């Protein structure tokens, strides 16, 4: 399976979820907020933690750990919400996800990105990853935010 191309800039916002490092295209990131408890949204998949109010906008928040098939971790002092722009077809949505801690902004060369391995196609992060970047000794799983947040309606039916 050919890997979808990663963003042209190659700047990643990286963060830690369950001890592993992940990154998203920095141009998709709208803001990073401290943790505030979302209002639980009924009748939605478990990984949707609820919605928060961002300057009058109702923004859904997903738990990336649960989305990746990992165990939910207690909210700690470094827990933050990363707010991103997600595009579904021609509709753009603002959504947020919960991560354990921020790392930094990493510039990566295009050739440092390897396509995601085929073997774990269905498991956790693999289906949502667009590649793995190798920077020095670190391995960063690059997430495709559009696939982290599928169309909620379709997802609700599947759940």
């Amino acid at each position, binding site marked *: 399976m050919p890997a979808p191309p990663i963003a042209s800039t190659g700047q990643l916002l990286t963060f830690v979820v369950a001890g592993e490092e992940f990154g998203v295209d920095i141009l998709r990131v709208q803001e990073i907020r401290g943790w505030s408890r979302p209002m639980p949204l*009924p009748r939605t998949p478990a990984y949707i933690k609820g919605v928060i109010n961002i300057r009058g*906008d109702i923004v859904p928040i997903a738990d990336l750990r649960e989305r990746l098939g990992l165990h939910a971790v207690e909210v700690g002092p470094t827990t933050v919400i990363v707010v991103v722009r997600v595009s579904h077809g021609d509709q753009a949505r603002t959504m947020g996800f919960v991560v354990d801690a921020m790392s930094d902004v990493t510039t990566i060369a295009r050739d440092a990105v390897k396509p995601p391995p085929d073997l774990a196609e269905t498991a956790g992060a693999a289906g949502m990853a667009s590649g793995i970047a190798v920077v020095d000794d670190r391995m960063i799983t690059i997430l495709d935010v559009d696939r982290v947040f599928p169309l909620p309606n379709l997802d609700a039916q599947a759940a």
Partner: protein
Amino acid sequence: MTIDAAISGLLDTFFDESFEGLDRAEAALLQLGDAAGGVSAEVIGDLFRAIHSIKGGAGAFGVDEVTGLAHAMESVLDDVRGGAPATADGTTALLVGVDELRRALDARRAGKPIAAGMHAALIAQLAALREATAAAAVTAVADDAAVAEGSPAWRVRFAPHVELMRCGNDPVRILRELAELGATDVVADTSRVPALAELDATALNLAWTLRLPGTVSRAQLDDVFAWVDGQCELTLEREQAVSKAQAVAAAPAAPPAAAPASVATSGGSLRVGVDKVDLLMNMVGELVITQSMLGELDDDGPLSPDRVGRIREGLSLLARTTRALQESVVRLRSMPVGVVFARLPRIVHDLGRRLGKDIAISLAGESTELDRTVLEKLGDPLVHIVRNSIDHGIETPAERVAAGKPAQGTVTVRAEHRGSTVAIEISDDGRGLDLPRILATAKARGLVAPDAQPHDDDIAKLIFAPGFSTAAQVSEVSGRGVGMDVVWRHIKELRGEVTLDSTPGRGTRTVLSLPLTLAIIEGQLVRLGDQTYVVPLLSILETVEYDSQPRRRWGVGDVIRLRDQIVPVVDLAAQLGIATGARADHRLLMIVEAEGAPIGLVVDELLAQQQVVIKSLETNFGRVDGLAGATILGDGQVAFILDIVALARDVRRTGRTADPASDDLQAA
């Protein structure tokens, strides 16, 4: 802004204006058809200009198919403007043209390709019509013996540019010379003349059309206009002499008129009157002043009674301005109902003709304003009701005369403000509802028990039942059985009401009452576990103690008996998956009305009643079954607004609305 963005913005404006123009043209054409020739030059001028602008815009944006058709239509209209009679055939062909233009523009906006040559037949038909009318005109003139043998008469259109007089030219001189050449039928087009206050003495806003005898030579005409060459739009053409019979034979049969496209309000752009924006600016100005006034009071000094007083004053000013601002913004989203009403004359015209009925439509209160969203959803129900009136209500002319009524039936559609709602009343002077037949049909369909004797009002309401239709034969017009129940549901979705009354032999009146806005509702805040939810206040009937009520299990849930009614109960916390750790000892049962029947919602506590601003969950997420949206409370927390109708449907799916024997219930 990039060039592409600028062009796409212009393109949007072109589409918006074109659709508006087509609506105007359609209205004018219908007037033309009704008045049989006796229409003012203004109407024809407006019609001409609407099509002309579309042609111009389409040319600029390269929508060639539209340009071609618009040009053919414009030519026909130009003749009419020049005095040629407006024939019924011509009007029909032009109406078809309007539909075609609308379809082509719709396709273009959606990015779909327009088949080349799609309008060739129509264009040919329009051209043939033109020749036919020109021939007729020539015949008429020949009868007057006002034209010289041989050469046909000249048709001259002289439209000077606004700055013509600033160049030292005087149209009076030209007109005098034309008069000397024997000009007749001179018509001045005054539609461009501004109001008196804005009149500029040096600007020329007039245009003329006139007829000259065929004996005048082209050179003579060129001489007259030699000085204004390039400063005016000038058309000189000879009226063509073609046999009328021949032209009519060449005209292809008119294709059936397509249903007019829905109101072009689906786009994201909003055309707002400058006055509304100015009002908004004023309000924001007030807000800024209040803010700076309060800002001055914000220092670390002691809170003297004087300062507290001034802070209070500032806050009350702030509250007043905020409310005014809110009202103006609501008004910004509103549009006159005339936009939707504009579709109706066409429907009455087309349907009446097809059914062989003579029907007039009278519209009132077109300037009444409603929220755009309400307006968009109002169109289909309104058309449905009007169609019903035409199909079932109004009788054929023969039947009407036999009943002692004028042969022409009337459908009246009127909009008016009634408090915080807008009422839209659709009435006809037809035969009224056939109550015995409705009852018989309802019994046959099993909607009513065979031995029941419902009240007349209740019988009338049966036409809103799903799948109900008395039409013996399913017609193209109505009678598919998906009519009035859809109307009922749409209006309910808009939080509106439908009422109906009918007098046999005298007519039927349907009233739709709709809320002014969908953006703000009166809400009752309720506590469920540790969360706050909002119930629309309008749907609440009463609230009773829950735990002390006799109840029994029915299907998958509980029902209670409240006075003489069996009410299904929804345990909201369980339905919405809310942790019940913080449940109250004395829960309450809120009885709400959903689609005409009560259901009970179990809540832990009633909190405040307040106005809430509805925020869509679909903007950033998607529809959540059971929720109508979300709102932000005073403390910045999000609260969800319950969708009572969806919750009630859940209950009905579990089969809890069938009446259990009430004896059982008492025993329970």
